[in-house]
């Protein structure tokens, strides 16, 4: 404290202190400052009113609906609150429905038209396709064990469609007899020739002695057997 007092009492500041303590000629408060003070009062009052009203509105908008849901409010006030909530929430619901429902609502009219014919057209087309493969394996199995006489007529028509399938089985079947195997090899070289001699099948029953080649190979080797026989000879 003494050092502070010494500081102020320093002779260096004597003239400066005198200068600082001189009074102003102006005594009245300047008009612009007075005007600002008045305006500040009006402005602060307005701000206070605005702030309080905003706070009240926010509080009421939060509290009243919650009280209404809790069924605490008297009926007339409750009705008013519900009507206001309904009024406020209706546009929001409309907007939310527009936002949430576009997937079901928009495709419903167009999708009903397109979807119904598509399955209708698809199912009939798929049905005729599926049965076709089922009958095809049947003739191959039935034809082979059957008697040679009726078989040729049927195999003619069906082997045309299933030539790749019917040709492959004879290879393992041929292994039953070496002579026929040789005869097959020659017969294959001759290409589709085996089908042509089938027209001459009436002679086939005579070839029963060549059965050792296996039941399967009969149908194929009927024409070939004559050639194989020819080799054997």
């Amino acid at each position, binding site marked *: 404290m003494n*050092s*502070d007092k010494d*500081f*102020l009492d*320093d002779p*260096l*500041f004597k*003239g*400066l*202190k*005198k*200068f*600082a*303590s*001189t*009074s*102003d000629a*102006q*005594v*009245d*408060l*300047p008009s*612009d*400052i*007075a005007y*600002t*003070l*008045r305006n*500040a*009062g009006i402005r*602060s009052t307005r701000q206070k009113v605005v702030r309080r009203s905003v706070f009240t509105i926010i509080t009421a908008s939060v509290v009243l609906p919650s009280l209404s849901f809790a069924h605490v409010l008297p009926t007339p006030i409750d009705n008013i609150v519900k009507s206001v909530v309904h009024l406020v929430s209706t546009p929001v619901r409309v907007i939310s429905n527009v936002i949430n429902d576009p997937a079901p609502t928009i495709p419903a009219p167009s999708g009903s038209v397109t979807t119904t014919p598509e399955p209708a057209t698809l199912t009939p087309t798929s049905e005729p396709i599926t049965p076709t493969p089922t009958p095809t394996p049947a003739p191959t199995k039935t034809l082979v064990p059957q008697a040679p006489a009726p078989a040729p007529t049927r195999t003619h028509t069906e082997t045309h469609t299933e030539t790749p399938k019917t040709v492959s089985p004879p290879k393992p079947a041929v292994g039953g007899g070496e002579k026929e195997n040789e005869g097959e090899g020659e017969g294959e070289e001759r290409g589709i020739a085996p089908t042509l001699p089938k027209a001459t099948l009436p002679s086939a029953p005579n070839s029963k002695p060549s059965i050792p080649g296996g039941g399967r190979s009969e149908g194929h080797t009927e024409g070939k057997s004559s050639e194989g026989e020819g080799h054997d000879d």
Partner: protein
Amino acid sequence: MRDPKQDGSSLGISSGNSENSDLANSLIAARTGDEMAFAVIWRHHNPRLSRFVQSKTYGSDIDFEEVISDTWLNVAKDIRKFKGDFSEFTSWLYAIARNRIIDASRKRDRTIRPKEDLEEAFWLPSSLNVEKDFEADESVKALIAQINALPDAQSEVVLMRVVGDLSVEEIAKIVKKNPNAVRVLAHRGLATLRENVKSSKGGSRE
């Protein structure tokens, strides 16, 4: 119709305690928008505040009257938001004045280009502007110039202490420093000032 408080006799400024209580009451009334009470406060503070601003802006081309006016306008605008006693009000008032001086110096730095030809063409020399309104002895002006030549923190503290007649605690609140740091700054400033004055006197004799 003048308020009785406006008379010098009724202000109670003669005696210390009654003056402080009157000023404290005036501050309370001014916060509610009482124009007369605000006038009392203004009349009490304005002379020293004006001297402080004049001293601080001496040597620069800052318009000190504009700074003082801005300060009071700011106070009038925000006095309703102010909360505190009269001592705190004094600190607040000088803090506003200090900020306005800083703003004015920044504004001047932005507007004035340091090209000599421009200065000659468009602006008057800064000394003319200050000399026009500043009334004081030459010795006082020389001392103020030397105080302003000190580092900013020191000159600020010295001027507030001597011209503004503020206590160390009030200055500490304004400059946002420890009171001990304010004391140190004041004493360092005084020591430097003494040396400068001594050297200048020696130089002038030689």
